[in-house]
């Protein structure tokens, strides 16, 4: 005899089929909430990282790049396209007014490297003038970046101090960058001299992909930090007007496209989440109403054995909470099992910067989802609880004959 086990718990256990259905429902509900908020916050974080990572106020690319489809990818995914302009533009840009910092980058692709299964980007940059890559170095071997030294994105599984081979050229990993949640996480940065050697080696190996690129006289983009006191828009207009055959973008505007599609996706996820929650509450509401109605007589029996009206509602509420909380715990676990191992796939299918929150944030979100699940259970059962507390014992027990 287990008098200490609560009556609500026994009632939940005593109707396994009904409880299982309701449990599955709350599992789905909570899992949807956890996945939803994790996805939205990952997208937010990804956007924030991309914004910070771009670091520059203005990006200058060849005018011809704008029409290319791959330009879109730069904006959306931080992946680089392949377009080039003469490096003399660098000087032209640098001598305009209102420019504090300016640094060129050269985009190169590598189909494969010694380390990695994914195609990765090789980006030539100028460590002397750079102001967009260095701030994101997470771990560095120290010293200045010399020839054959590379800075790698967070997703490359190589250690700082290790080596990585491109086109038969062995490079030393001098530093690793923070995660951004974009294709930049598989990028490799190196100085222009090293790029030159890589190109030479690739041609030697019979790969002619880069034959047309003259690394001494080519850049893919020029990054600009506007000097204090100069409105970014004015500098932008000035560049677009006076540096011909290039197109200058305000990085914020490039991001605005991302943030537009991000808010679109967020709204969609939010709507779906609300729909699942509302549907869940409605089904739970119907289920609790039916189940309590069905058991009116049992509640009348509890009443004659001494249960107060408060106690009757308490029993109904705890039944709901037992289901909502256990469903919530399982649902949270299910969501984590989906989100943690598969966030790469999710990231790919959404095609937006995606940066998972840290463990503490995830814990907070799970707690919030549990609270939502409990609140839904409570809301769905409140009506039944109230109704059963007004039970008219006499009427119910008469109704038999």
């Amino acid at each position: 005899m287990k008098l200490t086990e609560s009556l609500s718990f026994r009632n939940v256990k005593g109707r396994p089929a009904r409880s299982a259905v309701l449990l599955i429902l709350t599992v789905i509900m909570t899992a949807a909430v956890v996945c939803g908020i994790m996805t939205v916050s990952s997208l937010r974080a990804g956007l924030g990282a991309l914004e910070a990572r771009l670091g520059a106020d203005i990006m200058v690319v060849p005018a011809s790049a704008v029409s290319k489809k791959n330009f879109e990818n730069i904006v959306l995914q931080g992946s680089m396209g392949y377009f080039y302009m003469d490096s003399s533009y660098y000087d032209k840009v640098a001598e305009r007014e209102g420019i504090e910092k300016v640094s060129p980058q050269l985009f190169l692709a590598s189909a494969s490297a010694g380390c990695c299964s994914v195609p990765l980007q090789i980006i030539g940059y100028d460590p002397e003038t750079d102001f967009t890559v260095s701030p994101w170095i997470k771990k560095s071997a120290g010293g200045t970046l010399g020839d054959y030294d590379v800075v790698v994105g967070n997703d490359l599984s190589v250690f700082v101090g290790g080596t990585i081979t491109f086109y038969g050229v062995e490079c030393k990993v001098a530093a690793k960058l923070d995660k951004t949640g974009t294709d930049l996480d598989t990028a490799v940065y190196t100085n222009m001299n090293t790029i030159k050697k890589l190109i030479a080696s690739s041609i030697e190996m019979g790969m002619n992909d880069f034959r047309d690129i003259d690394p001494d006289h080519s850049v893919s983009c020029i990054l600009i930090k506007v000097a204090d006191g100069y409105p970014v828009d004015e500098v932008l207009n000035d560049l677009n007007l006076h540096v011909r055959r290039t197109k200058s973008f305000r990085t914020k505007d490039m991001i605005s496209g991302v943030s537009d599609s991000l808010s679109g996706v967020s709204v969609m996820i939010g709507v779906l989440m609300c729909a699942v929650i509302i549907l869940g509450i409605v089904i739970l509401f119907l289920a609790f109403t039916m189940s309590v109605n069905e058991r009116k007589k049992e509640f009348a029996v509890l009443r004659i054995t001494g249960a107060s009206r408060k106690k009757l509602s308490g029993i109904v509420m705890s039944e709901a909470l037992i289901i909502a909380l256990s469903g919530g715990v399982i649902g949270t676990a299910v969501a984590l099992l989906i989100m943690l191992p598969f966030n790469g796939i999710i990231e790919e299918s959404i095609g937006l910067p995606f940066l998972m929150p840290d463990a503490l944030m995830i814990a907070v979100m799970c707690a919030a989802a549990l609270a939502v699940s409990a609140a839904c259970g409570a809301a769905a059962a409140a009506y039944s609880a109230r109704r059963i507390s007004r039970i008219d014992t006499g009427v119910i027990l008469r109704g038999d004959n």
Partner: protein
Amino acid sequence: MRIASKGITKEFIRSSKGTNRLVAVAPADLEIAEGKLTLLMGRSGSGKSTLLNMLAGLLTPTSGTLTYDGSDIYAMNDDALSLFRCEHIGVIPQGQTAVHSLNVLENICLSYMIYPGNESREAVRSRAETLMKKLGIAELENAMPSELSGGELRRMAIARAMIREPDIIFADEPTCDLDDENTLIVLDILKEAAQSGTSVFMVTHEKDAENFADISLEMSSGTLSES
């Protein structure tokens, strides 16, 4: 415990406009004899159950007072009255009344799930076992209510009403759907309870029950009289 009602009345409103009032129980003065089996007979619809429910603290009277040892129980709040009922009043309702997620033993000890009290679990259990033995359902301890016959369920309900050794047991037609053998068993048990000092107030149709009764009352169209 002295249980007395003074002018206790119940009216039901029959139509939605509230114009058609039904007097289910006309003002009734009654004192339930201590340690006796009181029988309440009467035709169906005469107000027996309504009176019983009011006396058992389950139905608030339209007017009049009900006192247990001098205190007006309908003046208590719901929590206090519920606890009072739990500790002092046993009710055997009409029909089948089991909590289906609990087994027979747990059903019998139901009131301890609601108010555990300060008795040891062993004491409660051994009293439940004694009761079950007396009622002939000792082997059913772990059975679920759905596996029981009508007579067994009724005996379970009797044990549930008696487990806290109440001062009074109210039984509403406890034999109405039972065969002769089970009827006799139930009447015997209630008689024995009365003889051991518990007041018993029983509503019944059973003519034979009069042989067991110490006091017989009759109800007719809401009016109580001694027969």
